[in-house]
């Protein structure tokens, strides 16, 4: 216990130091929301990797590896990786404008409603984002609570409130604070899972023994539960079946590149190429995080054949670490898992609060405000949303990794066509965007509620039909809407429209072209 507390205290002190330091960098609204579009490659890889590796990865995926076998590698690890592979397709276009959008809903406005004084589309996207990220933050809080209660022995329902302390520390400096903390967290997560997997490897006798056990075990997931079919844990479809696994893979992969926080991440790098290289570098870094997680998740079945009846598979990692790893390694690993929860949550909270305050409130009730006031309101919103997420996590409604699948599926259903067609098809217009977002979101929720096997595919198909009908029955979009994403140099009228859109909601910060790149 003392080692856990000691490592945790060092981590908290570092967080405070890093955030006070990065607080000085957050100068303008651009800085606060997207790091001023100046993010360098190394910091970009650090923050992207940390946001990628959430509790769904470090707790949820090993949990599913433990209960469903190697199929979880296809559903989550490969699914997210394929989705990540598609992100550069978005980056290649969205980072082209000289002054890119600050937020995802603002991009939607720039692309589809450049002449509207108040953008309804921007507000709708902001509200959908708010709902989605509230649920995703809720998942991070749940994971944090599981680990924090394991470390300290505090009851889970009280432990989750510790999350607010970390959010208070990490969200004061906006995007730079989030990025700096994330880079540290990436290193910590990598060290933690590598050490823990080394211990599991040594205790189980290596991958050969693990696979031998998986091939023959019939031990139920929970003590007293139904026995597993022999060999099912090594089947590529696992306990899911082909239909459910396909649904998980598609939601994770196609939902990723159209999820607002990934699109916004692509607005932060200093240019298009950095954005592309950032994703490639992140996928490389993730090999050193995902491989140990696979070893831990599968190896756990050898060490703990069945988990206690009152625990979900989300508890398997804390159980293995506490029972089988030396205290110092256990401390680092569990703090790394907390870091994963915090780094993903602070990024999502920033997007969530920005969408609510900037894209909904300031868009509907436009007024010129100072940057100081903007940041203060945003901080307040972040803390308010975090509190709501904590309260929702008192009785967590789903398994961590599966919760991600649902929300990513929802984001993909609502935004996939709008993002990709908006960036690559000049004819895509405002009516098409309304049809795509509304039909996609409504059909996904309805298909999910009715229990269909592939809700994402059903929703995107319905959305595509709606988009095509809307686009071809309405007039072409104006040049000013698509030009920044297709041409290197834009016309004067496009430049004027972009400048006007920014000035309707915010006090424009001074030009900072002379500043050096950071990261």
């Amino acid at each position: 216990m003392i080692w856990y507390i000691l490592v945790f205290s060092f981590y908290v002190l570092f967080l405070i130091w890093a955030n006070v330091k990065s607080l000085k960098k957050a100068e303008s609204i651009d800085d606060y929301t997207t790091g001023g579009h100046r993010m360098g490659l190394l910091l970009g890889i650090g923050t992207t990797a940390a946001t990628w590796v959430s509790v769904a990865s470090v707790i949820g995926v090993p949990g599913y590896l433990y209960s469903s076998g190697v199929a979880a590698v296809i559903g989550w690890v490969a699914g997210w990786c394929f989705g990540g592979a598609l992100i550069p397709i978005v980056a290649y276009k969205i980072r082209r404008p000289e002054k890119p959008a600050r937020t995802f809903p603002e991009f939607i406005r720039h692309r589809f409603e450049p002449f509207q004084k108040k953008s309804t589309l921007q507000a709708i996207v902001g509200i959908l984002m708010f709902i989605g990220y509230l649920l995703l933050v809720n998942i991070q809080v749940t994971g944090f609570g599981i680990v924090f209660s394991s470390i300290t022995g505090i009851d889970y329902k009280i432990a989750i409130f510790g999350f607010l302390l970390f959010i208070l520390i990490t969200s004061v400096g906006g995007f730079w604070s989030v990025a700096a903390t994330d880079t540290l967290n990436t290193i910590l997560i990598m060290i933690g899972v590598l050490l823990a997997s080394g211990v599991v490897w040594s205790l189980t006798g290596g991958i050969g023994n693990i696979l031998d056990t998986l091939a023959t075990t019939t031990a139920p997931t929970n003590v007293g539960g139904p026995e597993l079919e022999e060999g099912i844990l090594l089947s590529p479809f696992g306990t899911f079946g082909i239909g459910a696994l396909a649904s998980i893979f598609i939601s994770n992969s196609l939902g990723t590149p159209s999820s607002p926080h990934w699109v916004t991440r692509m607005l932060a790098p200093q240019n298009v190429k950095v954005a592309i290289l950032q994703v490639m570098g992140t996928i490389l870094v993730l090999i050193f995080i995902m491989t140990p997680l696979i070893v831990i998740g599968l190896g756990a079945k050898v060490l703990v054949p069945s988990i206690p009846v009152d625990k979900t598979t989300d508890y398997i990692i804390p159980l293995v670490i506490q029972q089988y790893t030396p205290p110092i390694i256990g401390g680092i690993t569990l703090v790394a898992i907390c870091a994963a929860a915090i780094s993903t949550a602070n990024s999502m909270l920033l997007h969530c609060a920005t969408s609510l305050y900037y894209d909904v409130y300031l868009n509907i009730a436009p007024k010129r405000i100072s940057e100081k006031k903007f940041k203060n309101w945003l901080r307040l919103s972040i803390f308010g949303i975090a509190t709501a997420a904590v309260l929702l996590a008192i009785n967590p409604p789903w398994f961590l990794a599966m919760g991600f699948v649902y929300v990513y599926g929802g984001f993909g259903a609502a935004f996939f066509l709008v993002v990709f067609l908006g960036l690559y098809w000049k004819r895509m217009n405002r009516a098409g965007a309304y049809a795509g977002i509304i039909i996609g979101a409504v059909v996904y929720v309805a298909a999910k509620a009715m229990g269909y096997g592939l809700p994402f595919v059903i929703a995107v198909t319905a959305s595509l039909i709606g988009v095509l009908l809307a686009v071809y029955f309405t007039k072409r979009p104006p040049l000013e809407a698509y030009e920044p994403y297709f041409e290197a140099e834009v016309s004067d009228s496009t430049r004027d429209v972009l400048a006007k859109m920014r000035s309707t909601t915010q006090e424009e910060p001074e030009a900072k072209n002379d500043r050096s790149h950071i990261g």
Partner: protein
Amino acid sequence: MFLAMMVWVGTMIFSFLLGTFLCFKVEKSGVKRWGATGRIFKYK
């Protein structure tokens, strides 16, 4: 197990090929603001 790992490795290879192709396209555009530097993986 082998099949599952191969699916993951396949997605990674796809990612690097696609990223390289897009970097090549940036270079081909010659637009410095987008990151064209004269070398495919050099960004500044």
